[in-house]
């Protein structure tokens, strides 16, 4: 495959996955309605704490919770769907490295997760008077894709487990809330035990939330954008190794198909 063909394949794969997920009515409905709950959590928490000035901060954190959950669950579910639909074997048997097939799938899950962030902010503004302002609009335009890429690559590392195991949902379900907490979405990391901080630095969720917050509320988003993209490269490299290893094991254990 020529070098020019790779970006085209990634873009098409991403577009196909976003289109496929977006044509599933119930999924979109839950992505748009569930954030009401996230917005309510943010609003009532910070109102109870007499911190109305921090409502936008909290709403972004709540929205990022939605993005992370959709990315994590969506990436795993995408692999489960592909296996059930008999598509996984056809993707594996394509002559491109499977990591390049998987990357757009999890990036698409992170992109669809962004519906959740947008919906949380809109619901917060409509129902709970969350003030919506954007301090650095151009940097917000960079923060959003950087966050999608960071989360997509972390999602890919998780999804690689699904290549080998048919029922890896327990793993992804288990990781939802610890990552949410360690990323400081709603509770600042400074309030958590000291050992959590290094963990939070390794999570693109932490830097993605920081980049979007500083773009909207004010501050310096560029370092967070850089950290998010740097971690994305690291997770991509790690996922490339695990995908390759798990693909070979799956061929050995015959777990690519349903039975």
């Amino acid at each position, binding site marked *: *495959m*020529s070098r020019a*063909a790779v970006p*085209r*394949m990634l873009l*098409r*794969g991403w577009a*196909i996955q976003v*289109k*496929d997920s977006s*044509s*599933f009515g119930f999924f979109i409905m839950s992505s748009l309605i569930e954030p009401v709950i996230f917005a309510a959590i943010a609003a009532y928490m910070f109102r109870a704490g007499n911190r109305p000035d921090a409502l936008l901060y909290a709403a972004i954190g709540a929205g990022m919770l939605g993005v992370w959950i959709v990315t994590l669950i969506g990436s795993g579910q995408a692999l489960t769907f592909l296996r059930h*639909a*008999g*598509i996984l*074997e*056809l*993707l*594996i*048997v*394509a*002559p*491109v490295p499977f990591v390049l*097939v998987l990357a757009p799938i999890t990036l698409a899950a992170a992109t669809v997760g962004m519906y959740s962030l947008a919906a949380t902010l809109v619901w917060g503004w409509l129902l709970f008077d969350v003030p919506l302002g954007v301090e650095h609009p151009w940097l917000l335009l960079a923060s959003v894709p950087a966050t999608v890429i960071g989360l997509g690559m972390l999602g890919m590392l998780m999804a690689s487990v699904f290549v080998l195991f048919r029922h890896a949902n327990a793993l992804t379900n288990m990781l939802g809330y610890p990552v949410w907490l360690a990323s400081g979405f709603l509770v600042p990391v400074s309030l958590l035990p000291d050992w959590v901080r290094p963990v939070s630095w390794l999570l693109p969720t932490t830097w993605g939330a920081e980049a979007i917050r500083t773009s909207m509320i004010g501050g310096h988003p560029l370092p967070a954008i850089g950290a998010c993209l740097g971690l994305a490269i690291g997770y991509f490299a790690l996922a490339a190794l695990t995908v390759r290893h798990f693909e*070979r094991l799956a*061929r*050995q*254990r*015959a777990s*690519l*198909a349903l039975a």
Partner: protein
Amino acid sequence: MSVIEADGLRRSYRTSTGVLRRRTHEIEAVRGVSFTIDKGELFGLLGPNGAGKTTTIKMLTTLLLPTAGTGRVLGYDVATETARVRASIGYVFGGDRGLYERLNALDNLRYFADLYAVEPRIQRKRIAEVLDIVGLSGRERERVEGYSRGMRQRLHIARGLLHDPPVIFLDEPTIGVDPVGSRELRTTIAALSAAGKTILLTTHYMFEADALCDRVGIIAKGQLLAQGSPAELKARVADRTVVEIEAHAVTADAVEKLRRIPGVVAVTLDERDDGQLLRVQSASGLELTQTILARLGDARVGRIATREPTLEDAYVDVVTQGTRS
């Protein structure tokens, strides 16, 4: 030069039973299968369900690692040179799975064209060509979920042909497709063979194999029991006559009694929606119809016919002898 080579291919699976005291069992699905397929040849792998056809095809398409033995496609090892093998083959399986149902056919084909590095400048032309080959031109903008089973199967074949592979693996492509759809698919497969593609086809429809294949291999219980052209295999049973009886309520005991009639070589009983079909193979020249009817007990009998043996009878003979030994 052989395009596809299977040399002593073996594959076993591990399964476990029990919850607290788990016991692991090893099941040998394929036990040392060897065959070669030459350039431009259409080779059919025939066998009952669970015979090892799909496992063999999955090893040759790189989806499963062989437990032992080697497989080669165009000289590339299927276990170690996966990228080269994958770039040279088209893989199509039967059934209505394997497609993005909520997307239209065009999106499905474009995506796979990118995965197979079909150049953008020729992609549009190639997609139009494959749609034309499988007779789906004009339907490509419809969502796949609205397609009939036959249309999905044809779309599968179109997907498998996008990169114009020299080698095509077709795993039961007509399964579950209605008779008209099956006939159209067979026409498509015959056209591919005529175009010089090397094809490995698995099926358990004998007339399909008889009509399409240059050579067939009969596989049962993971072993290749016989191989040759349909004519060669039919020659194995040329000295026999087949009595075919449409019946109801034929019991297993009655079938056993038929097997004990002197001169009877094989007996099969197929359950069908509208009754049963009993086939009794015997040495030609023997008139056994009355003897057979006498041993059917209370079974109700419909049409009775005596005919020359077909590939299916050869298949039954090979499988029956193979599973006895």
